[in-house]
């Protein structure tokens, strides 16, 4: 068994989990909303890409490009028309509405696409690999990881370098005063969820091309994403990437020891971090 290879695969897998998590982290950071349907929305995007690939014969990357604006609009509308109504001091309405949404999405997909496992065909890219010193890495896992880094860089640029990012942070600080500056919080929140759905679509591209998926795998992706966010510390996107890597490495190492322990090892790594650093590895100074 090649441990270096195992760990490297885990790091690259962590990139996928960071992609799952980045949208969740963004939305929570801005409006303190935890979307329990986040994983199911990734699956929706994966099916959308699948339909575009198989129906129109598009290249998966081109299909994802087409899906991006669709998912942005869907996220915008979801937030503007439904989730905004649930925001407030009480945490129950957003949790229960998004939990209901999760069930609705899963069963709508089951009705539309059956319970069969699917995969987005990515042609020769699926099997291509690069020699990297003593180990070889798959091109798709490498692309996933690089995309995760790119997404985090871009999100940080938006957050800290643009007027929109200032409005995100200002609204998160103080909604009423942001309103006095001309910010319409409902639109800002809708835009944030739209951006989160763009990240979700990128995550779905790699979810769909790298492994099989079916309508019911959303909740497990939500859990991985959530674990990455908590390990990294709320509000830190680089922390989220590290959290994803920790989950990913724990899973591949666990699987190398015993294939049945893959998922369990990831969860246990999360619980250990929760035990020793309850606020995550890079907690934000102010919550």
């Amino acid at each position, binding site marked *: 068994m090649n441990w270096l290879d195992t760990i490297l695969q885990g790091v690259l897998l962590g990139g996928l989990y960071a992609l799952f998590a980045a949208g969740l982290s963004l939305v929570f950071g801005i409006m303190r909303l935890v979307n329990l349907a986040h994983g199911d929305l990734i699956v929706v995007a994966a099916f959308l890409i699948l339909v575009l690939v198989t129906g129109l014969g598009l290249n998966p990357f081109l299909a994802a490009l087409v899906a991006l604006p669709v998912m942005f609009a869907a996220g915008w509308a979801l937030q503007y028309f439904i989730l905004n109504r649930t925001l407030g001091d009480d945490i129950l309405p957003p949790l229960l509405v998004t939990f209901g949404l999760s069930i609705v999405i899963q069963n709508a997909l089951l009705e539309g696409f059956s319970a069969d496992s699917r995969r987005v065909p990515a042609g020769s890219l699926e099997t291509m690999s690069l020699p990297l010193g003593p180990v070889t890495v798959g091109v798709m896992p490498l692309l996933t990881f690089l995309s995760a880094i790119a997404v985090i860089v871009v999100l940080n640029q938006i957050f800290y370098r643009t*007027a929109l990012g200032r409005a995100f942070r200002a609204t*998160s*600080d*103080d909604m*009423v005063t942001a*309103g*006095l500056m*001309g910010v*319409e919080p409902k639109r800002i929140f809708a835009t944030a969820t739209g951006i989160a759905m763009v990240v979700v679509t990128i995550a779905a591209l790699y979810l769909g091309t790298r492994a099989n998926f079916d309508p019911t795998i959303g909740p497990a992706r939500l859990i991985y994403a959530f674990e990455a966010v908590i390990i990294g510390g709320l509000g830190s996107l680089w922390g989220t990437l590290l959290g994803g890597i920790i989950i990913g490495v724990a899973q591949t190492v666990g699987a190398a020891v015993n294939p049945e322990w893959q998922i369990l090892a990831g969860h246990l790594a999360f619980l250990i971090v929760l035990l020793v650093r309850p606020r995550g590895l890079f907690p934000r100074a102010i919550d």
Partner: protein
Amino acid sequence: MLETVGLTAFYGDFQALFGVDLSLRVGETVAIIGANGAGKSTLMRSISGVIANGRAAIRFEGEAIGDLPAAKVVARGIAMVPEGRRLFASLSVEENLLMGNYGRKVDGPWTLGSVYDLFPILKERRDQSSTSLSGGQQQMVAIGRALMSNPRVLLCDEISLGLAPVVIRDIYAAFPRIKASGASIIIVEQDIGQAMKVADRVYCMMEGKVTLEGRAGDLSRDAIHAAYFGVHA
């Protein structure tokens, strides 16, 4: 240019304003004075759109704006310096200022440069977190932030609250330049002396009603005292 017509306002079942009539003319500075709980801040929050009112209760440049939300009110040119400054804690000083013109980008005298000109200390502190500033400097950021939208009307809610007299004097020293830039101003003050110095006209409020109105120079101390405390000498 701005007037309220029989303005009433409620917090839940509690009525805070009982038919307030107020008017502001172009270029004018009006002060609103009154004790705590007189309804001054509620009046400011109503005009700025934080509290929703009947459409016809507030008119601005001939249009009824009483039911507009805050973001639409500021877009029309009414900016507010809120009570307690309310800076954005996770934004730097400069980012706070830049938020000021988020919803209204018009050409005018106020830019980042001219605000730094008005309050030079802010230029030195531009990259600091807004929470690291002194109270007076924070108030300067709050005023500068409101100016960034080049407002037609500037609403200032209790800007001297909690500040030392020398700091208050520094801040009010900026008002002649703000006036000269063409903005009409409404200031809410508990400090009557300060209010009388900068204002052309004064409204005195008590228990949600206007009890006295007049030119700053024409009002006697006794009349203000009576209107302020409800004591009829």
